[in-house]
């Protein structure tokens, strides 16, 4: 519901919203431009009387002096019967430049508030402000739900591509957009009488004036009492009319000044409602608040990008959840697959299962969980594949599942199996599949379990394939499930360099550097095969296709796309299919690879200390982070290997990084040469320093094997105790990240 509320108005209105946003961004520059052109004396230095006196010296035919909200002083005068207007220097009264409202800005303003369509357009613009308000509010709620709570809003965001850009930009822009939309709605509502408007007529003209000989304007006492900074407008009396008066408007109110006595007549303070209205206008336009104007303008500039990425997300979601080939009708199917997916990754698994079961001769119906039918008369097997969203909630395509389940009537022989997808690093791993009862709820509906609920960690193709084997046995038909992610269009990579370590200590580990193999040549004009890798950074993953059509294996990247090489650090696993394959490569050999983004594993930006902890090949991405630390933020590396003689990975590089201060401190432990010391021991020895860094907000990134990560967690929990916090808390703040394999 929230998503429809966010998407539908956004989609329909995007063209108008983009127009409003771009024109708004242009208009937002006006206060800053005006401010830059204006000469602004400090408060209390120039009174209105002094200003008027100086101006009249240079402009005897002055009719009106206006001080703009940005501080510029404009004089409207008449000379030889010709009207004119100049921007003047309030310190001298001299003209600075002729004042002419920019025709461009006037046009843009007209486009902004009425799409050049007068009242009908103004009404449309008002409606758009309301739409914007709805989109902002629903967007904030979506983001809160997605990140898992209000506090989580400021943490690094997960996700990739359009979705990432959309939420990152929105997070930056939403407060500005909300303010613009709210004030715009208010102003429009007032204009069309939906909201009350304080219309201030100002005081009535004085019935009696002294009518005496006019005194020089610079000597009028009422004008001497008003500082220039408070002036809005001073209208001069009609020439040679002794009965006329000066009309004075200040930020506080308005009144008249007798041109002979200088007395303030009929002064009326501004009504509260009118002050409020003025604030609304200022908050919308940035008039008098040029810095706010620039912020609002920058926020508005995000709207075109948000529109494009928003439409892209909507389109991708439509497309990838679309029809499967050979999808049986719900009433005919003997096997049903239901999918709960937020970003559509789970659909890839469902497709594979669907194809595989189809091949085995089953009538398979596959649909999203929200489309749960009231019953499946022919079905005897139900598979539920679901991810978990945010803080253990249902993902988008499963949100209505629980409600629909109450109307669901199960056939007697219907059996089911639930498969959860998630990331074990997050505390709410697969919570929707397990704790929030998809599995249990199905059991209470009288269905019997075909297979106990199982969980797939980080889209692991091998876990999925093992699950397929077990299920295949249970249904008496072997299923060979080979999941390959939808987006894994591979690129040929050529090994250009390798550095081998650790052979002497039975831990052969190599740093492999690849470059994109398919460059130049006429094939680059062929649109089909992608030749270059998408952008990536250290900490992202390289998917490597092992030979013989096995599922890809993932390795953490130690390099960024800007370096022009693809660098990974690989430990040869005993009997490891892919690591063995990589270790046998010679320079010049080719592999097929692709990038999987992993934005959840990045050092924080800013000046807080970063504590990098790793063992063995886990140093890869950590070395990459250090290499990229051009701003010399404090970074400390704790790393464990076997022997300083044999497997000290990246030893020369780390030395250089220490020298040029990309790396602040290095602490190593070698289990074979250092009396059996592990990286945990080094952390323990250094605990007061580690604790001190954590208390100043340090972020910890751990990369390496599962056992090492568990050991490090124990030590860090110990170190945290005196600080009355724990890893769970740091994790929730985005300060404890793990990349574990």
């Amino acid at each position, binding site marked *: 519901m929230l998503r429809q509320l966010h998407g539908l108005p956004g989609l329909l209105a995007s063209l108008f919203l983009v127009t409003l946003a771009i024109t708004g961004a242009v208009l937002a520059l006006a206060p800053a431009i005006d401010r830059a052109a204006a000469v602004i004396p400090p408060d209390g230095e120039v009174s209105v009387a002094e200003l008027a006196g100086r101006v009249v010296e240079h402009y005897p035919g002055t009719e009106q002096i206006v001080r703009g909200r940005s501080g510029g002083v404009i004089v409207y005068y008449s000379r030889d019967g010709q009207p004119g207007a100049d921007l003047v220097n309030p310190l001298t009264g001299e003209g600075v430049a002729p004042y002419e*409202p920019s025709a461009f800005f*006037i046009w843009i303003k007209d486009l902004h508030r009425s799409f050049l369509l007068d009242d009908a357009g103004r009404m449309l613009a008002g409606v758009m402000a309301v739409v914007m308000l709805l989109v902002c509010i629903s967007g904030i709620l979506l983001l809160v739900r997605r990140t898992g709570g209000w506090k989580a809003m400021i943490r690094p965001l997960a996700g990739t591509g359009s979705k990432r850009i959309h939420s990152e930009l929105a997070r930056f822009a939403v407060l500005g957009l909300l303010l613009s939309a709210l004030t715009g709605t208010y102003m429009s509502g007032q204009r069309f009488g939906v909201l009350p408007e304080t219309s201030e007529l100002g005081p009535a003209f004085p019935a009696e004036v002294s009518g005496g000989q006019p005194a020089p304007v610079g000597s009028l006492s009422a004008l001497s009492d008003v500082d220039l900074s408070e002036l809005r407008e001073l209208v001069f009396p009609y020439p040679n009319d002794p009965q006329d008066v000066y009309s004075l408007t200040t930020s506080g109110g308005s009144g008249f000044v007798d041109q002979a006595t200088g007395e303030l007549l009929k002064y009326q303070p501004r009504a509260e409602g009118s002050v409020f209205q003025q604030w609304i206008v200022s908050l919308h336009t940035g008039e008098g608040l040029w810095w706010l104007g620039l912020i609002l303008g920058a926020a508005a500039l995000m709207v075109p990008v948000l529109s494009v990425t928003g439409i892209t997300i909507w389109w991708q979601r439509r497309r990838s959840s679309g029809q499967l080939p050979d999808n049986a009708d719900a009433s005919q199917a003997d096997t049903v697959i239901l999918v709960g997916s937020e970003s559509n990754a789970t659909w890839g698994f469902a497709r594979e299962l669907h194809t595989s079961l189809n091949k085995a001769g089953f009538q398979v119906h596959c649909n999203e969980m929200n489309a749960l039918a009231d019953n499946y008369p022919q079905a005897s097997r139900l598979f539920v594949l679901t991810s978990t969203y945010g803080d253990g909630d249902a993902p988008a395509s499963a949100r209505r599942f629980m409600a629909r389940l109450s109307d669901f009537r199960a056939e007697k022989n219907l059996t089911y199996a639930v498969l959860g997808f998630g990331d074990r690093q997050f505390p709410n791993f697969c919570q929707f599949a397990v704790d929030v009862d998809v599995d249990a709820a199905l059991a209470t509906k009288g269905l019997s379990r075909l297979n106990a609920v199982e969980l797939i960690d980080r889209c692991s193709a091998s876990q999925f394939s093992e699950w397929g084997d077990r299920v295949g046995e249970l249904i008496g038909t072997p299923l060979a499930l080979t999941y390959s992610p939808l987006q894994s269009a591979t690129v040929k990579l050529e090994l250009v360099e390798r550095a081998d370590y650790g052979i002497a200590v039975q831990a052969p580990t190599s740093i492999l550097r690849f470059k994109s193999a398919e460059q130049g040549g006429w094939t680059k004009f062929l649109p089909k095969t992608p030749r270059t890798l998408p952008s990536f950074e250290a900490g992202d993953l390289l998917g490597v296709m092992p030979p013989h059509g096995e599922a890809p294996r993932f390795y953490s990247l130690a390099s960024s796309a800007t370096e022009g090489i693809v660098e990974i650090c690989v430990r040869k696993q005993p009997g490891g299919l892919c690591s063995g394959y990589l270790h046998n490569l010679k320079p010049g050999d080719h592999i097929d690879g692709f990038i999987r983004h992993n934005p959840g594993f990045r050092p924080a930006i800013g000046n807080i200390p970063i504590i990098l902890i790793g063992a063995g090949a886990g140093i890869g991405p950590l070395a990459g982070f250090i290499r990229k630390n051009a701003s010399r933020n404090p970074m400390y590396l704790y790393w464990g290997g076997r022997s300083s003689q044999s497997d000290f990975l990246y030893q020369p590089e780390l030395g250089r990084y220490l020298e040029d201060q990309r790396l602040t401190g290095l602490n190593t432990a070698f289990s074979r040469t250092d009396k059996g010391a592990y990286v945990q021991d080094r952390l323990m020895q250094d605990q007061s320093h580690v604790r001190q860094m954590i208390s100043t907000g340090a972020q910890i990134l751990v990369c390496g094997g599962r056992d090492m990560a568990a050991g490090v967690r124990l030590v860090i929990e110990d170190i945290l105790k005196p600080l009355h916090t724990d890893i769970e808390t740091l994790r929730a703040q985005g300060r404890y990240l793990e990349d574990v394999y």
Partner: protein
Amino acid sequence: MKKIVFALGLAIAVALPALAQAREVTFTTELLNYGGDGAYVALYLTDAAGNYQGTLWVAGKKSKYYKHLSGWARGSRLNPAEYDGLTGASITSGRTLKITLNLDDALIDSGHEIRIDTAVEDMRDNRADVAVPLTIEGAGKAVAGRGYVRSFRYDF
């Protein structure tokens, strides 16, 4: 464009009770392409000394902007009774306002003056943008204004 039967304000009716002859007068006000928002325009009548006598027409509906038509505002004291039924929409840049009113014969050739005050949002206010005597001889002769008025004429 706009045709209304006009009876000048109570003040004039009282001041000139004996005169009942009236004639139709058309006022044509063409604005310059000044390029801003809709202009607020007040047409009013003064005596020879410039004292306000009555309102002919006010273009622009929002009374909060009326104070910018300062000559008229001062004379009419912004008393709504002075302009009730004599208001219309503001006039877009470059457009022409044409109104037809019934005026007492006694107002013509008696030293009365037609004045026009104009104002535009964020631009200058023009008190007495146009000031012309109301005479038989002056009828049909276009005069230029000082502010936003390109030309003004009245025809009997």
